[in-house]
């Protein structure tokens, strides 16, 4: 009897062991996100290094043509970069002013009932699949634009950019509004006490006080616009084109990756490696935006 008791583990030890095991499993799950990041960085660099062993970095950065699938091969990234930048700029020209105005309106002017209805309604914009936006850009927005821009080609960066812009309005407006609502009420009251109107308070007190949050919202919008794929793949045309004119067709970095992936690419070929080099460039580009954003938000962080 006594011996049996000694050999059995005491309940406390079992309990502690179970707790340890559970904590370890949870920890492994949390590590999965780090593993994902590591895998992304690893695979992008690994395949890109294979690419840059065959194509010099110099050519990648100085050539003005991107034609890896043609007989006359050129590997200059700039046409893809210009396409990405143009669509992103068009999208931001829509999303930043509209998103900011909506955020100010919802946080400072709108009655609560309007906010309760409009905010989720706008968030539905972000819930619609991007391939549907692509359809909309190609078959609704482009024909609509062509009625007053007769020279506009069927594939163009303008309608793709405009549609992406509307699509990312909720990212900008929701986050900005949250930041504005976090501004303490006594700052507003102080402003009203000096005789300022709502608009003056909104523009000169609330907006500056929430700058860091608003910039964070803009940065998210930029990342979304630059990384958006299906709208540009469907509506902007697939030809890499070094131009800054939004009325022309062009390919973005993401659209190039899609167009190559569609033609069943053999593993290990130079074409296969190009999409990783392009992907790496895209990640580095969004990383630069994020770093700039990080320093801007730090610079403008208000301590109430």
């Amino acid at each position, binding site marked *: 009897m006594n011996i049996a008791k000694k050999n059995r583990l005491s309940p406390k030890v079992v309990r502690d062991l179970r707790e340890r095991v559970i904590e370890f499993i949870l920890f492994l799950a949390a590590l999965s996100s*780090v593993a*994902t990041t590591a895998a992304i960085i690893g695979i992008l660099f690994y395949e890109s290094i294979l690419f840059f062993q065959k194509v010099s970095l110099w050519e990648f950065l100085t050539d003005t043509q991107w034609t890896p699938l043609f007989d006359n091969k050129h590997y200059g990234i700039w046409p893809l970069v210009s396409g990405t930048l143009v669509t992103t700029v068009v999208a931001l020209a829509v999303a930043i002013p509209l998103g900011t105005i909506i955020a100010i309106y919802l946080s400072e002017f709108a009655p609560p009932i309007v906010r309760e209805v409009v905010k989720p309604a706008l*968030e539905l914009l972000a*819930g619609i699949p991007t391939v*549907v936006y692509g359809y909309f850009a190609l*078959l609704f927005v482009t024909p609509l634009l062509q009625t007053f821009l007769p020279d506009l080609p069927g594939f163009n960066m303008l309608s793709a950019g405009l549609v992406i812009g509307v699509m990312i309005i909720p990212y900008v407006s929701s986050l900005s509004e949250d930041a504005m609502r976090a501004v303490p009420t006594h700052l507003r009251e102080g402003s009203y006490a000096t005789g300022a109107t709502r608009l003056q308070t909104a523009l000169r007190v609330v907006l500056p006080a929430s700058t860091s949050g608003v910039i964070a919202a803009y940065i998210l919008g930029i990342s979304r616009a630059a*990384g958006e*794929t299906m709208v540009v793949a469907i509506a902007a045309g697939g030809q890499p084109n070094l131009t800054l004119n939004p009325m022309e067709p062009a390919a973005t970095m993401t659209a190039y*990756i899609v167009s190559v992936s569609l033609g069943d690419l053999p593993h290990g070929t130079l074409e296969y490696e190009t999409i990783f080099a392009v992907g790496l460039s895209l990640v580095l580009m969004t990383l630069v935006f994020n770093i700039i954003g990080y320093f801007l938000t730090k610079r403008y962080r208000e301590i109430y």
Partner: protein
Amino acid sequence: MTTLNIRQIRTIINRNKQYEYIFNILGLLSMLVGIVTLLALIFDLFGDGLPRLSWQFITSFPSRKAEEAGILSAWVGTLLVMLVTATVAIPVGIASGIYLEEYARKNWLSDLIEINVTNLAGVPSIIYGLLALGVFVYGLNLGQSVITAGLTLALLVLPVVIVATREALRAIPNSIREAAYAMGATKWQMIWDHILPYSTGTILTGIIVALARAIGETAPLVTIGALTFIAFLPDPPITGQFPYISFAWLLAPFTVLPIQMFDWVSRPQAEFQINAAAAGIVLIALCLTMNAVAVYLRYRLRKKIKW
């Protein structure tokens, strides 16, 4: 002199009132741009695609003839891929949420995980496609299959589930935790018996939003090389013979609704674009329904819970 001053002040006040008025209009117009676009998109899609939407469309395989083509393989594929995504993303996401919120000590490792989760949410979705192409398709030799697609989307929506779980846990007051400890519960008993049941609703909302996003994702699946023309169904998961459950479907090639739509919209013929619109209606109905359920849940939970 005084009358002049008062008059000046009045004009200033009037001007400020005008600005306020103008801004009010501007705000309403800006919101209208978003909402009108949403409505235009939905009406355009329904106008083009609704006549095409029929029982035959839902139960047919894709075809070279637009009138005979349907979305059977696409919606079955979507269902199977979502099954894999949910089985992977939900447990892993909730587990990491619990770890970060309840267990993580303040050290560099938990900081690293935190920064990681935030940054992953900002990575363009097509990059996940490249990751999957390199790791799942060629690294682990899973091929362009249902399991590859499901894992890809699971990684993509993992940050959404993690963030939702953390917010749900954070909303639970410490008094509940302390009460559980006071009764002699261990940490895990406290979490499993008390914290998780209270936060189920909010976590569920996050999961629905995450899956709604995964259903509409196209880019990463195009990148892993999902086929656009599939005229057969994967093996059924439940079989007539022993052991009754088969996992062959996991390695089957597949297509999903967004990819089917992308294929049709990229074709020059107008009849296929009508098919694209019809597929788009099904897709949008799925996504908007899921989002609406999430919004409703959030609204109800916020009203009901009073600590």
